[in-house]
């Protein structure tokens, strides 16, 4: 097993800090958009960890799909729900929920420390497998397993993606009106000729015609 070099440790330390800072940001941000952006930070940190393990393709996918697409989807959903309504995070929905969550969290960490200490091969050192051989070989190996052992799983993934589209259309689409409806009253735009920027009161959100 390769010993972890100083650079490896430095890379791991830096990205671990980024990952954890992002994760804490997700939990403590009062504004959901900030939470989603903190998530991007975490995902980038994880991508760096993947790079340190020489899993370049995985790192690229992490950035393209998770940081790119999935978080964009999150932001869409947050904007659909309306970010102008702040949630009161200070109130507990269930009594005693937080202390119990805290205790369970501590118990989980203790469990992990205990179990990983008992397992000799969890060292956090750099991957010994490395890139299989030559440039692009990781992707090559991936393609091979995709088209051999995991062929079936790969093919039914396409059905899974189609289901996602069908589901989104069914749940989000308004059925076409049978007869031409009366034109919906347009929301009268509030013209901001003299914006009062120092006005602390939140501006009420413009009513979007409800679908």
């Amino acid at each position, binding site marked *: 097993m390769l010993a972890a070099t100083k650079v490896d440790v430095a890379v791991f330390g830096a990205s671990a800090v980024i990952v954890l800072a992002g994760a804490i940001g997700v939990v403590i941000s009062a504004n959901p958009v900030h939470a989603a952006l903190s998530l991007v930070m975490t995902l980038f940190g994880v991508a760096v960890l993947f790079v340190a393990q020489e899993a370049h393709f995985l790192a690229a996918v992490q950035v393209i799909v998770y940081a790119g697409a999935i978080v964009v989807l999150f932001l869409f959903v947050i904007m659909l729900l309306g970010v102008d309504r702040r949630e009161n995070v200070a109130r507990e929905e269930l009594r005693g929920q937080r202390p119990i969550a805290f205790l369970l969290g501590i118990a989980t960490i203790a469990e992990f420390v205990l179990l990983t200490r008992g397992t000799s091969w969890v060292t956090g050192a750099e991957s010994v497998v490395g890139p299989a051989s030559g440039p692009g070989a990781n992707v090559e190996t991936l393609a091979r397993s995709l088209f051999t052992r995991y062929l079936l799983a790969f093919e039914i993934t396409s059905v899974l993606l189609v289901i996602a589209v069908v589901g989104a*259309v069914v749940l989000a689409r308004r059925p076409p009106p049978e007869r031409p409806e009366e034109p919906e009253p347009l929301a009268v735009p509030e013209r901001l000729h003299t914006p009062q*920027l120092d006005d602390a009161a939140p501006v009420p*959100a413009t009513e979007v015609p409800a679908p």
Partner: protein
Amino acid sequence: MSAFLRGYLSVLVFGFAAVAMVGAMLGAGRLLRPSRPQPQKYIAYESGVDPVGTGWSQSQVRYYIFALLFVMFDVEAVFIFPWAIRLEALGIFGLVEMLIFIVILALGLVYAWRKGVLRWV
């Protein structure tokens, strides 16, 4: 330092260069321009028209379908990359399997198109 990390050193250098360049340009602009603050200058720019409401207002659920279609084809691209990199090596078999994959996915697009969600009414 391992060779592959040295490869990423250029990424790091490039990142620093980008930050430095943007910082230098904005900093120079700040030093050179006159400063006359007016409230109108702080309005969000929306195609030259006066903005309607706030930037934080609720958006239409219909945008969601576009976002989801984007994710779907993003994931499809991830599966296509390994195949495209070793196109010849995977041969006819790989081509056929990939075609099945893409055709089934294209059905999702046909469905969305026929249901009229791609048209903004």
